[in-house]
């Protein structure tokens, strides 16, 4: 039995009857990583937000989304909130605006830890420091004293991931965590994810429009387009032998891009290709 089971998830805008996500189904086993790929606007984030009850009030989600056989879509707000903090963790795309600009990072991390676990402020502070150390941040005490606008995007993203790890959730949903970062930071964050998966064996849902990244991390892949599920299967199968037109197109484009790049690099530096 899978940990997460989503069947025929549909998200509809009640103001103009527009369908944003249509009949999406997938399942995630424990200790696996599901990669959701697609272009911008394909409904990737919307699906996961709908499962967690984070969509705007004028959007309605129908269908079924089960966590450990418990239906999430019709759950009451309070229980869902508790699940969001303790069992699910979501890492957002834009780390720079994710924190309240008026409070220090440390204050907000402690606030989160105290709310979701039964620890005191002192214990929370310790846990936060350890989490930041695990994320290979050199001076965690200094970082905790700073405000969001004083830190770089990559650093903030690592704080968010660190905080998510510290909560020890069952599932982590990473929504395009590397999109807003430059390539150096991107690489660091991805290595982080790889390392954590190997260390903790956590269940991960990774949303990205970058196929290379997904290939790196995922076990299963869900390809989305215009709010619909286009193809769903194991990662090797999708990348080596995509069935649907669109998946083929995505994979081919990606290979073409990297091929050009690799050729250019070879010419430039006599690199062995």
């Amino acid at each position, binding site marked *: 039995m899978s940990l997460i089971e989503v069947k025929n998830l549909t998200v509809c805008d009640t103001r103009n009857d527009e369908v944003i996500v249509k009949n999406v189904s997938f399942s995630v086993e424990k200790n696996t990583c599901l990669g959701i790929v697609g272009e911008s606007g394909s409904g990737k984030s919307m699906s996961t937000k709908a499962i*967690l009850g*984070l969509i705007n*009030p004028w959007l309605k989600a129908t269908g079924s989304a089960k966590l450990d056989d418990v239906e999430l879509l019709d759950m009451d*707000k309070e229980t869902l*909130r*508790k*699940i*969001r*903090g*303790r069992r699910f*963790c*979501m890492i*957002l795309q*834009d780390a720079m*605006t*994710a*924190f*309240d*600009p*008026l*409070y*220090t990072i*440390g*204050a907000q991390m*402690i*606030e*989160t830890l105290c*709310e*979701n676990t039964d620890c005191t*402020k*002192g214990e929370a*502070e310790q846990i936060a420091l350890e989490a930041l150390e695990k994320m290979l941040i050199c001076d965690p*005490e200094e970082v*905790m*004293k700073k*405000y969001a*606008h*004083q830190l770089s995007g990559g650093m903030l993203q690592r704080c*968010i991931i660190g*905080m998510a790890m510290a909560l020890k959730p069952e599932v982590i949903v990473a929504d395009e965590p590397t999109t807003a970062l430059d390539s150096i930071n991107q690489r660091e964050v991805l290595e982080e994810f790889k390392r954590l998966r190997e260390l903790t064996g956590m269940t991960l849902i990774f949303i990205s429009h970058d196929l290379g990244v997904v290939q790196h991390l995922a076990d299963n892949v869900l390809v989305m387009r215009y709010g619909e599920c286009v193809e769903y299967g194991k990662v090797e199968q999708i990348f080596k032998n995509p069935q649907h037109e669109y998946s083929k197109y995505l994979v081919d484009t990606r290979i073409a891009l990297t091929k050009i790049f690799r050729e250019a690099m070879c010419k430039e530096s006599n690199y062995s290709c």
Partner: protein
Amino acid sequence: MFVRNICKHPFLEIVDKVKEDYMRDYIIYRLIGMTPILLGISFLAFVLITLSPSDPAEVALRVNEITPTPEAIALTREQLGLDKPFFTRYIDWLVASLHGDFGNSYVNNKPVFHEIITAIPATLYLAAVALLFTVIVSVTAGVLCAIYEGSIGDKVTRGLVFLGTAMPSFWVGLLLIWLFSVKLDLFPTSGMQGFSSVILPAVTLALTYISTYTRLIRNNMIENKQENYVLYAKVRGLKESTINKHIFKNSVQSSLTALGMSIPKLIAGTVIVENIFAWPGIGRLCVAAIFNRDFPIIQAYVLMMAVLFVVCNFLVDIFSALLDPRIRQGE
């Protein structure tokens, strides 16, 4: 303990930061920038009255029911120092003003300063009560409307607020007098006697500003609700009340400038209310002075109010800067 370092009380942090150089520099920079504006305002205040088409000497005589014969006018001009060249008069007036000497009223020949000082406490009292009403009602209404956005209460409040901005405040004052004083006999109709007499004037004065600030706070909070940090707070599983607290703090930041400026606006806005309710403050003094063409009083009132606005603006700016860690940290 270390936690205290991270979660230091904002006030203590502010005090620490003021001692920092860049905050001090910012304050000094603003003070220097304020000086030419203050000078310009004093000049404007002086010019406005001096450019009057009526001859102040003649006016002064007429008000005291003395026939303005050419000799009398010449004599009065000399007495009032009106025969000196323009800039000399301006400098004299400015220097005297800084000492609190605004000359004497044309009407009763008492020192203008004395007249104003006796009238100010009443105005400040009225403005303070009105400010209290404004802050309590607009913050409560604004926050509740934002939290329960789209509900019936929200829609009704927004309708009322809208009407409030279109209603002439003197009309509201009159209606309130009729309802509460004449019909229900709950409050006195005019004058300043005891606490109950300040309620109607304060409510009338506050009504215009309540509309503006309720709308402002509500809109600020709703804008903040759409921010990314609110989404992330929900993702982290924080309680609804905690999230609202975060939103509120961020909204107050932006509303603070407007709320701060409401203080001088309330003091200036007492002009109408004091006239309806026969409240013995500077508003009533000013209007009477306009009717009597009592220029020294008008001049002093205008200068005082203008300076008050500029100074309040400055204080509010500094205060906002202190509260916002982005500015505070020298970014």
